[in-house]
């Protein structure tokens, strides 16, 4: 942190000012002039929270994607299909048993199994041929999409939110002050906050697992140079299978999350594939913190964009990607 400030004093100043402005926008009661110019603070805070929670969901999808890419150099364009598959499995389990938590566990296990099968049956056969692997994942995503359309039809599904998470919660953030002087607090759906907290927990757990455990050490070594790692006697194929299972399982979990606070339908696979592509391009391929930062930026840009400049929301996302590519082609937090 101090090194960053020493090396880029101007940027550090800009970042500090931006953070200060953001904090003021969140915590202060907006003066009348600002409300007239921008709109009500409640709208802004809602968009902000929606953006952050959407960023959590994007992180769940993109972290698996970036993990698989980082280790195996395999752009898994069937990742969106794994997301949708996890969502459908979660819906089926939650509709059959009524248990939300169980649907997460089953979705994780089943999508992880699909991931293991993919790695063992398909990708192991064409190791080192990046382009061919990518083509195969495109073919697989088409096949999966059609199989899921066959099995589930074109309807919209939404996973039932459990009772203990339904309803809004009052946050200690003042959105406005009534004429009587009584403050109005922001009310926000509890389930979204819980999901966001869970994705933060998963992110931190992944970071700890990668940086503090033996298997994490092996994976990081594999990201840097997998040939040398294999030469030291590590069973690299086993590591590949484990990482692929973890990445796929995360996509499945994200599917259940997405099915709870959005909905599941054919086409969602492409949407989330695109989201994770943009997130990892912005954040840096193969970097977990990069995926977190990218997911936050893209989630915020999408939500704030759709509130304040509705027709051009997608362009904002795209412009961010273009900017990052122009300034730092390897992504914001990539090490390369």
């Amino acid at each position, binding site marked *: 942190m101090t090194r960053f400030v020493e090396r880029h004093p101007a940027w550090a100043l800009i970042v500090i000012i931006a953070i200060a402005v953001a904090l003021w926008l969140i915590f202060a009661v907006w003066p009348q002039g600002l409300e007239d110019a921008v709109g009500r603070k409640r709208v802004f805070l809602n968009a902000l929270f929606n953006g952050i929670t959407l960023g959590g969901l994007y992180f769940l999808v993109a972290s698996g994607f970036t993990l698989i890419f980082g280790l195996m*150099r395999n*752009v898994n*364009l069937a990742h969106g299909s794994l997301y949708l598959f996890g969502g459908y499995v979660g819906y089926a389990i939650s509709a059959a048993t009524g248990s939300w938590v169980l649907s997460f566990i089953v979705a994780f296990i089943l999508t992880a199994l699909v991931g293991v099968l993919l790695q063992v049956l398909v990708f192991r056969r064409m190791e080192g041929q*990046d*382009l*061919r692997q*990518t*083509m*195969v994942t*495109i*073919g*697989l995503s*088409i*096949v999966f*999409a*059609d*199989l899921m359309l*066959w099995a589930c039809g074109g309807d919209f599904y939404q996973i039932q939110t459990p009772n203990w998470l339904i309803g809004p919660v009052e946050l200690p953030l003042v959105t406005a002050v009534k004429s009587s002087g009584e403050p109005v607090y922001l009310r926000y759906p509890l389930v979204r906050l819980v999901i966001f907290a869970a994705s933060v927990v998963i992110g931190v757990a992944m970071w700890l697992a990668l940086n503090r455990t033996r298997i994490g050490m092996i994976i990081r070594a594999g990201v840097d140079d997998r040939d040398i790692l294999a030469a030291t006697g590590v069973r690299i194929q086993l590591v590949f299978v484990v990482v692929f299972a973890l990445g796929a399982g995360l996509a499945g979990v994200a599917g259940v999350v997405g099915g709870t606070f959005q909905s599941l339908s054919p086409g969602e696979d*492409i949407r989330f594939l*695109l989201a994770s*592509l*943009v997130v*990892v*391009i912005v954040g840096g*391929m193969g970097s977990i913190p990069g995926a977190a930062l990218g997911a936050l930026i893209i989630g915020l840009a999408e939500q704030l964009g759709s509130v304040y400049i*509705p*027709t*051009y*929301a*997608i*362009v904002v*996302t*795209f412009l961010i*990607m*273009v900017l990052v*590519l*122009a300034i730092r*082609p390897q992504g914001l937090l990539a090490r390369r």
Partner: protein
Amino acid sequence: MSLAHDTRVTVRPTAAVQRSRLRGWPEIDNPAAWAVAAILLIMPLIANGFFLIEIFATTLILGLMALSLMFLAGYGGMVSLMQLTIAGFSAYMVAVFGASGNANISLGWPWWLAVPMALALATIFGTLGGALAVRTEGIYTIMITLAIGAAFYYFTNQNWAIFNGHTGINTVATPHFWGVNWRADIPFYYIVLAVAALCYFAVDYISRAPFGLALQGVRDNPRRMAALGFNVNAHRVAAYAFASFVAALAGVLQVWNYRQISPGSVSVGACIDILIIAVVGGITRPIGPFIGALIFVLLRTFALDFLVKLGLDGNRFRLLIGLGFLAIVFWSSDGVIGLWQSWRRRQRSGAASSSGRHGREAGRESGQGSTQGSRHG
């Protein structure tokens, strides 16, 4: 900057060009090519309107889009998923600048103004996208071009001022001049055929011209080409510009064919279809995309009847396409052409040979030839 290099290269290998003039157009002494050309020319006598437009014209248009991808992927080593997006952009521009049923959007220019405008804008669009994509390499290119394609799709869905949202632009005017309705089946077929033939021979020519050889050198060993003084990125961006122009031509033909354009025709799935067409046909030769497009169009048109006849669900057309694509990617590195070539070779000599590598290696040799040539020159 480096394109100036090409002029130097052009001066030098005249001897090589003269030597290969006979060898240069392999179609000339290939009876099969003459037969295909003759059949394509007299097609209106054989086929009825449905086959002429729905099968052959559509094949040629899709083949053109896939040809632009084949040029980038086969000679430049850049798999771009945004070729359909460029075609779609050009189609939208024809609809916006030309006349259409949506009078509040279309400017109503005559076709001879609207079409060059659309071609120019789409080429600029594709070149800018390419300039963005060449900042990265290999699989990153796929992801960035896919992201561009998807962004354009969502943008056309959201934007009502220019792209008219998800309804798109309908009843686009088609050209009438010299007393001919050029959208009538037979004239339109000949327009499409002429454009496709022109682009096919242009790609064929460029692949052997100094620029194409340098591009293949860039594909095989960018660092070495850079060390030889070629500006690698300028060659790549120029390749994108040419490919964008081909795709833009295809887009103009497509909007005349369907007389409408909507976000559905630039969806991500359709972008991927173009990749499938090129890969199934084979991306080492310009004929591959057209073969792939013919297979794709035939499957798309007749798979339903075929599947129903087999007693299966007719809606599983995409499953069939996906499985076919997977099979091709698994067993042949060069699509149908690769399968055909390895089968021919097995027929000729039963000797074991690396299947489907022929075209690529030939390209590699010629690429290296140019590299060495420029070193001498």
